[in-house]
């Protein structure tokens, strides 16, 4: 050991020995910073490239998808068009069949109606002719009856007029007699009524006159009851007492 104590060192060893001095703390920090920036640049460049590729891919996928959908839709629309044409054809056939059936039924009913109308017309004509004949017969009979009744009515009217005239004359005579009787009764009644009214008037006036004094006295008592005080009447009262003084004195002596 002591032999190699002062042995010259090799360059690599020297470098190793000096390495800790070279790569001190600051150096390591600088290298770390440098590496970090480099890494960020690389990442950013890759990200831009990746983004471009992705946009291109998305655009391509969208174009292809659109073309595929349009193609599929065109195909389906064409299929639907065919189906619609078939359905329209079938419906037209069905409508045509119905129309023919209705036309046949219409023709059949028209023929039937024409036949029945002709039958009814002839029956109606026959019935009309019969009715007219019957009406003529009845009209002739009615005219004969009318003539007969008119003649009878003329006879009756003549007789009734004569009877009426007689009754009218009789009634007029009776009315005249009654009016005369009424006139006489009225005059008698008027005379009696006037006499009665006169008697009652005299009675009422007599009663009124006899009660008038009481009415006035009652009124004065009600109206003047306590209107005069004794002081105002005193001279009159003393005068009355003076007038009756002798009677009073005589009574007091009894």
């Amino acid at each position: 050991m002591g032999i190699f104590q002062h042995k010259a060192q090799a360059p690599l060893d020297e470098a190793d020995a000096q390495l800790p001095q070279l790569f001190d703390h600051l150096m390591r920090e600088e290298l770390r910073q440098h590496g970090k920036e480099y890494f960020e640049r690389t990442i950013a460049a890759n990200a831009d490239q990746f983004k471009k590729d992705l946009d291109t891919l998305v655009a391509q996928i969208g174009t292809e998808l659109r073309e595929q959908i349009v193609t599929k839709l065109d195909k389906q629309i064409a299929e639907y068009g065919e189906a619609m044409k078939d359905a329209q054809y079938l419906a037209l056939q069905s409508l045509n069949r119905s129309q023919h059936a209705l036309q046949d039924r219409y023709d059949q009913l028209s023929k039937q109606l024409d036949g029945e109308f002709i039958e009814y017309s002839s029956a109606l004509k026959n019935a009309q002719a019969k009715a007219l004949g019957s009406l003529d017969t009845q009209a002739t009979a009615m005219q004969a009856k009318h003539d007969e009744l008119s003649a009878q009515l003329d006879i009756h009217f003549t007789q009734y007029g004569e009877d009426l005239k007689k009754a009218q004359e009789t009634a007029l005579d009776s009315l005249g007699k009654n009016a005369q009787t009424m006139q006489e009764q009225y005059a008698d009644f008027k005379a009696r009524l006037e006499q009665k009214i006169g008697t009652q008037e005299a009675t009422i006036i007599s009663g009124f006159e006899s009660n008038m004094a009481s009415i006035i006295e009652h009124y004065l008592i009600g109206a003047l009851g306590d209107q005069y005080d004794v002081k105002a009447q005193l001279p009159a009262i003393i005068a009355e007492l003076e007038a009756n003084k002798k009677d009073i004195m005589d009574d007091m002596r009894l």
Partner: protein
Amino acid sequence: MTDSVTAQAGAFILPPSIVTRVDLSRMVSELERVDNDMTSAGVRAKTGGESSAMPTMSEQLTDFIAQNKLDLTDGRGRGDLIRQLRQLKDDAPVIHMTFASVADGDSLRQLSAWLRSSIHPQALISVGLQPALIGGVYLRTPNHIKDLSMRARLTGGRELITKELEALRGSR
């Protein structure tokens, strides 16, 4: 004794302020009270106490004593006076007067003065109220009635109205 009391009672002069028997009764009561007071005062004076002055009296009693010249200092005389006044209260003639409205004191005093000067010196009035009389007086003496009211005059005038109405009917 009773006759002498009656005779003396008949000689009393009643003042105009004593109109009714109630006034006279009130005066007798007052005189009894005065008699009691004066008797008590005399006893107190005899026993050496203070002799009090004359007791207070109403205007009616004062007038009555003055008009009749009475002396109340004598105890026996006061007793006689009380008896005489009681007698007067029972014997005095009363005239009932009914009016149509309430009679005031002054009018009653005038009427009582006239009655005492004209009819009887000790006449008393008994007052009544009857509005239906309208006016005047309805007089009742011990034995008679005199209707001097306006109602009686109207009743008496009924025939006059009837005659007037008959005359009016006749002229129509």
